[in-house]
């Protein structure tokens, strides 16, 4: 193979090749190519994003573990902690939707229980193309079945999600999965630093096959016409095996039998072994011939790069090995000793007694390339003349057209296929804007996902800010104090200046909002190269926010519950977007957000406290498609109508307002000085009609449209 071909196969560019030669003092040989290819891939090295990620707000009093480990950890007090993280599986899901999405769920769960936390909740953020686009029905069906197939089987409930549709995802769907795990009293936190010279390196879980060889470097490239021929063997997830792995790993951790542990994710054994050695400042020997194989003809290189699922690498003291092995045997899994911790800080790869190479993990990991790719300073698109009164008049009759669209209609088809209650701790399922799990202490843990791609398309900075502020306010509207955030930054090709500019701008928007709302980003994932044939996806920095509520009493509903109650509109900020409906109609995009974020955050805190203290039946943030759409959704569940008097556009989208219903509006109105919160009474829960000023619709009719939108757009699935 010529050098050029080699560089192409291993996706190493010429300047990186020069660095490799400097590190080694010679040409790379044999498996060294594979090691560099894997560890220096965008996916493993974050080479295009690291300089920017370093700036993220990532600490608070509650944060026990931030970036750098498999997942971040937050202290909830009362001897409870949660670990959580979000990850993308976009390319594999586009190739094979069922397995791609399923293994995405499997991977994120391993990140959580590797730390010693028992997985307690899942969430998923999905972006599909237009329903009529090529393969789209198959993709929607496969992805949702895959997520359900895996999550249901391992027994972790799905508590929330978001499903978007837009043409920019026609050739590149996004599948992001988030997992949350719980530590209760006495559960140890386990890390991935290899330690203790002479300790065993132990391989547990499924046998290694050729699955996904070269997968990590593939995820670091755009799709092109010959992607087809580059396809690695599809990784198959086995949730049954994962369940056994969860139980056995948690047991050995609790019995204190492991010194360090790391799942084998992208770039499999290579990245887990090098990272464990690097973090622990020690070396490892790895006898590749002792790795349990599914196919005995595999080469050392394939073993190093395999992305077979449901495997873990751990470090164990020799004297505890038999006990550890017994635990795995009880659960029907094998544990094989494949190496040893050594003092020399090198990873020695051995094949049938022969040393293939010795490499310093520090040299490989710390010298991974870092690019400060060119970007432009962001020009905000704010139009200060754009206010609710200047907004183009909208026709309330359009409400029916909006409700009939797949973007606005019910997503029940999706979440009905997910077990939302296994674990017997679900207080609010996917039908609620905030998923809520009951903690053993009796408190509530709230989970909500953020990022509205249509706002991102309007302005990347505001969109990034909104990815944090919007879910934070959703949590507040249910009485949750926001704790921390995870993210999954899905963008196109970072080598394009406009993509990088959007990346930097949205990260800055997110970061500012995180600081203001005090919700540090404690874990996350970057997925670049979401583009096909030169066309990139909408910039999509999805987020997952977690909040805490002191108790589950009077947790507000999200629909009207009682005839005669008052409907109040609470304004937290004055910003405004022309909105999703305007975009769908191809109208000019208008946006205006000139808020002081710290004031917005203060008002949000006031709201959180009010939802706990004041009489409250239901609450909802004014969402995409605006106030009238939001209010109409509150009528469906119980078939209770509403009469609204409101002078303003029905479908523009405020940054931010919240609607509540209460039996005691006076308490709300008198509780705040207007600079704290602006509270207006806009109507009453009444009858069986949705009445907007003088225009009236039957709730039953609107509901039918809302519930029929999925089948209308995606018939037959």
């Amino acid at each position, binding site marked *: 193979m010529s050098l050029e071909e080699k560089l192409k196969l291993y996706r190493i560019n010429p300047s990186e090749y020069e660095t490799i030669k400097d590190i080694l003092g010679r040409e790379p040989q044999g498996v060294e190519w594979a090691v560099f290819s894997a560890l220096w891939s965008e996916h493993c090295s974050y080479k295009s994003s690291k300089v920017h990620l370093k700036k993220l707000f990532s600490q608070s009093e509650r944060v026990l573990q931030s970036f750098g480990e498999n997942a971040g950890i937050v202290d909830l007090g009362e001897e409870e902690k949660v670990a959580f993280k979000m990850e993308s599986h976009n390319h594999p899901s586009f190739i094979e939707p069922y397995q791609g999405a399923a293994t995405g769920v499997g991977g994120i769960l391993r990140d959580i229980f590797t730390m010693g936390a028992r997985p307690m909740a899942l969430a998923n953020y999905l972006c599909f193309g237009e329903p009529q686009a090529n393969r789209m029905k198959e993709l929607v069906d496969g992805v949702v*079945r895959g997520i*359900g*197939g895996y999550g*249901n*089987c*391992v*027994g972790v409930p799905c508590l929330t999600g978001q499903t978007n549709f837009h043409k920019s995802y026609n050739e590149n769907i996004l599948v992001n999965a988030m997992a949350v795990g719980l530590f209760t009293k006495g559960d140890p936190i386990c890390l991935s630093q290899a330690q203790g010279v002479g300790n065993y390196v132990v391989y547990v879980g499924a046998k290694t096959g050729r699955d996904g060889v070269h997968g990590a470097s593939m995820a670091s490239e755009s799709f092109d016409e010959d992607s087809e021929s580059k396809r690695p063997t599809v990784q198959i997830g*086995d*949730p*049954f*095996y994962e*369940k*056994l792995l969860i139980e056995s790993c948690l047991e050995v951790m609790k019995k204190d039998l492991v010194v360090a542990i790391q799942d084998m994710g992208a770039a499999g054994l290579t990245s887990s072994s090098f990272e464990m050695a690097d973090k622990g400042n020690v070396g490892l020997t790895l006898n590749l011939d002792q790795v349990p194989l599914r196919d005995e003809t595999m080469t050392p290189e394939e073993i190093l790069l395999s992305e077979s699922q449901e495997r873990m690498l751990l470090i164990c003291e020799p004297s505890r090995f038999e006990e550890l092995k017994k635990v795995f045997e*009880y*659960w*029907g899994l094998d544990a094989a000793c494949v190496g040893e911790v050594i003092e020399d800080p090198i990873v020695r790869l051995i094949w049938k007694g022969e040393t293939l190479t010795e490499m310093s993990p520090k040299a490989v990991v710390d010298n991974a390339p870092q690019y400060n790719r060119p970007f432009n300073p962001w020009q905000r698109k704010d139009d200060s003349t754009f206010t609710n009164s200047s907004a183009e008049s909208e026709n309330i009759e359009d409400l029916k057209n909006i409700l009939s669209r797949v973007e606005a209609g019910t997503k029940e088809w999706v*979440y*009905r*296929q*997910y*077990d*939302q*209650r*296994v*674990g*017997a701790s*679900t*207080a609010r*399922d996917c039908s609620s804007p905030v998923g809520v799990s*009951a903690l053993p202490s009796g408190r509530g843990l709230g989970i909500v996902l953020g990022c509205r791609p249509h706002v991102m398309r309007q302005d990347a900075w505001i969109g990034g800010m909104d990815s944090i502020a919007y879910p934070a306010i959703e949590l507040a509207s249910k009485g949750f104090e926001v704790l921390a955030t995870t993210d999954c930054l899905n963008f196109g090709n970072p080598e394009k200046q406009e993509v990088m500019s959007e990346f930097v701008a949205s990260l800055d928007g997110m970061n500012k909002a995180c600081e203001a709302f005090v919700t540090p980003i404690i874990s996350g994932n970057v997925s670049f190269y979401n583009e096909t044939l030169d066309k990139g996806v909408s910039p999509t920095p999805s987020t997952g926010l977690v909040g805490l509520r002191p108790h*589950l009493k009077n*947790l507000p509903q999200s629909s009207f519950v009682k005839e005669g109650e008052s409907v109040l509109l609470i304004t937290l900020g004055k910003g405004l977007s022309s909105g999703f409906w305007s975009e769908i109609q191809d109208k000019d995009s208008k946006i205006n957000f000139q808020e002081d974020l710290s004031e917005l955050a203060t008002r949000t805190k006031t709201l959180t406290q009010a939802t706990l203290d004041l009489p409250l039946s239901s609450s909802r943030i004014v969402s995409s498609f605006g106030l009238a759409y939001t209010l109409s959704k509150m009528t469906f569940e119980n078939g209770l109508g509403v009469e609204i008097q409101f002078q303003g556009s029905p479908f523009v989208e405020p940054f931010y307002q919240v609607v509540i219903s209460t039996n005691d509006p006076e308490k709300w109105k008198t509780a705040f000085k207007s600079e704290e919160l602006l509270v207006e009474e806009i109507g009453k829960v009444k009858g069986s009609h949705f009445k907007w000023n003088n225009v009236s619709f039957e709730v039953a009719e609107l509901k039918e449209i809302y519930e029929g939108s999925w089948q209308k757009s995606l018939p037959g699935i």
Partner: protein
Amino acid sequence: MSKVGVLRFPGTNCDRDIWKSIELKGKTPQWIWYEDSFNEDDYEAFLVPGGFSYGDYLRSGALAALSPSMESLRKADEKGKPIFGICNGFQILCEAGLLPGALMRNEKGRFIDQWVDLELSNESQWSPYEVGKVYRMPMAHADGRFFINEEGLNDLKANKQVWLTYKNNPNGSVSDIAGVMNKRGNVVGMMPHPDRALFDWMGSVDGLQFFDWKGEN
């Protein structure tokens, strides 16, 4: 006080939920691992929890039904001990022949998580006992379509072995059957989850009534 045996198989995932349900009723649960035979007299009653034993591979419940613990459970049945299978536990009891019929893929071919109303059709040895009363709780399964051939169905009805029926059949089960019992009424099984309807914050407390049995100490 005597113990309630909770059977666990590789892939069982509602085991801890059942444990909590039993404790909530002031009883003492104890694990029974699939590889272990046991003495049926050590336990007062048995629960087979839901989940995905063996990943639902081959047929839901089929591989678990072959476990050594199930041989002991058969002996417990011969002695008339109360045995209750929920969801995958119901599937396992059917596959093992401790309950009549089979549970097949839902009519629409998909997993369904939703709330259901169940009517108690006949009294078994397992509570509740009030025939005609309706209970609300969640269900979550892909293979919950109860099937039995015509002759078998006639027998079930004649012997009053239909335990629970759906008010709105969600999955195509014959005669809306959500739960059945054996002839003696000591073995019962149901697809929906009483273990997920125990507290107000769960949305219903009706499930609490499903963890008692006749002749309890």
